[in-house]
């Protein structure tokens, strides 16, 4: 079976995010880029599928879309244990929206014969969550989003998965080929070993650019896209808070008085 895991580089979640002076984006110079947390969950789910189901003879490919520097996320995927990596690599892919990214990936894997795709529920940079469902639609595949448990059916032709919704979990039976987006809680991502990281540097990267995928600069331009982003700004500051002093019982009474009488919040 051929299994694909989508991975993406994002600024480290602990990094300081500074908006550029003209508001056109964020400063990326000196910001450490790492694999998005939900991509780690998704890659781990793919690796565990292979390890726990030798009968599936799975081959795991990791794929990313972006400029040359994003190869680092594929090296990390190699270090975690994938068999192959694909880089849809072009400067034209730098600022495209998620629906365009889905179309680019669909073109890139058209003839690859994948049976199963794992993606993160969202990227922790734009927190947008469009890519997985959009790619499934481009491929005319079924998908289940925010998966927290997977049970494989006979011969890996189907799966029964649980997906987290408001206050409940949906249990969904899905036929392959399919795409699953992974929620936190399904699995804990492994740490790559140091030798694994060293070896990953020398492994081959399958690369395709926009032209090879049939996209012109015009196809990927701002004018052709459904959306573009601008006017980045820091979050609005919250007004300074008010500290309530006193013994616990007194402070609690005062808090409740404020919330009832002044805020009318309770």
């Amino acid at each position, binding site marked *: 079976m051929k299994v694909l895991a989508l991975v993406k580089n994002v*600024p480290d979640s*602990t990094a300081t*995010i500074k*908006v550029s002076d003209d508001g056109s984006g964020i400063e990326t110079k000196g910001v450490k880029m790492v694999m998005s947390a*939900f991509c780690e969950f998704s890659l781990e789910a793919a690796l565990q599928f292979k390890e726990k189901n030798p009968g599936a003879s799975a081959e795991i490919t990791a794929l990313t879309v972006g400029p040359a520097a994003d190869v680092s996320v594929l090296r990390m995927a190699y270090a975690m244990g994938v068999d192959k990596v694909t880089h849809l690599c072009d400067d034209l892919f730098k600022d495209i929206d*998620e*629906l365009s990214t*889905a179309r680019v990936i669909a073109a890139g894997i058209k003839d690859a014969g994948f049976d199963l795709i794992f993606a993160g529920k969202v990227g*922790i*940079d734009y*927190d*947008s*969550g*469009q*890519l*997985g*469902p959009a790619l499934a*639609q481009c491929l005319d595949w*079924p998908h*289940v*989003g925010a998966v*927290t448990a997977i049970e494989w059916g006979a011969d890996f032709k189907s799966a029964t998965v*649980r997906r987290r*919704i*408001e*206050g*409940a*979990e949906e*249990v*969904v*039976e*899905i036929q392959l080929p*399919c795409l699953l987006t992974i*929620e*936190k*809680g399904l699995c804990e991502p492994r740490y790559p070993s140091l030798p694994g990281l060293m070896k990953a540097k020398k492994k081959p990267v399958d690369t395709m650019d926009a032209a090879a995928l049939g996209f012109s600069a015009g196809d990927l331009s701002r004018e052709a896209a*459904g*959306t*573009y*982003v*601008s006017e*980045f*700004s*820091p*979050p*609005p500051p*919250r*007004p300074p*808070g*008010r*500290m309530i002093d006193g013994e*616990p*019982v007194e*402070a*609690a*009474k005062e*808090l409740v008085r404020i*919330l009832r009488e002044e*805020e009318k*919040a309770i």
Partner: protein
Amino acid sequence: MTKDVFVFVEQRDGTILPGGLQAITAGSELAGKTGGRVVVGLVGQDLGALADKLDGSGAAVTYLTDDGALADYNVLKYTRALVGQIEKADPQIVLMASSSMGRDLAPRVAIRLGGGLATDCVELGLDDAGTLVVKRSIYAGKATNNVHFNASKIQIASVRPNTYAAPEGGGSPAERVELPCAADASDDRQVTKEIARTGGGEKDVTEAAIIVSGGRSLKNEDNFKIIAELAAVLDGAVGASRAACDAGYQPHSRQVGLTGKTVTPQLYFACGISGAIQHLAGMRGSRRIVAINTDVEAPIFKVADYGIVGDLFEVVPAVTEAIKQAKAG
């Protein structure tokens, strides 16, 4: 393309999701600016009573795709039904709630219709040319940006829950347009087998108007009962920090923050939560924040509207008691 705003109003088991109603309010504001009408869509089974409830919400037309095949949510069938409604309505703008269903459907619908999409929007408006422009929170709440739409394409956005109030009602009844369910055999490639309630039917953090969250300083699962008791007197939901969830005190479904849920309640209690960046990412959009912590230097006090420095094991039960007394008095 008309100047109308189409709002998908999500329902499950005959109950309308609050976020779906809130999206109608957002839609009415936008339609006031486009010069078009608000029209709404319902997808499911036995929708008559729900359509009655939407009468007076401001919608001019209610599109109904009402069929036994749509009783349970199936992303393929619902995408097909929703695309059918939107093609019939031919709106400039499509809105829906940024719920688990909205997150599932919106990208598929956008690809099908060749439109633009922005998810989980916190402000919606029009630019000078009358095209949709929205504000979103990015990088775990460390920045925001605007998303501009292509004027020549259909403009689709999902709205963060609790960003808008539900419509006040009192408007005229909507015209009803029933559309057939055009389900295809290929839609049965996935089937919903069961909806398993988690958390004993308690409120989900993304839907609650009040959330009481606890951190690792609760020390164990059992101690979370003081958090649950405060949540209960407020008719709110229980939330937790990542540290508390990773330690197993609460299920991940209650985690608020970067790898958990983003919440925007009217009132958020952070009890024994220091306020790590990844937690603030999930709750800084709350209208009012109350922090209870022993450490006066804890970063949570920087975003809190009201703070009490003290031991949560003393303060939280005292707050619960004070609310009970206030309600009794």
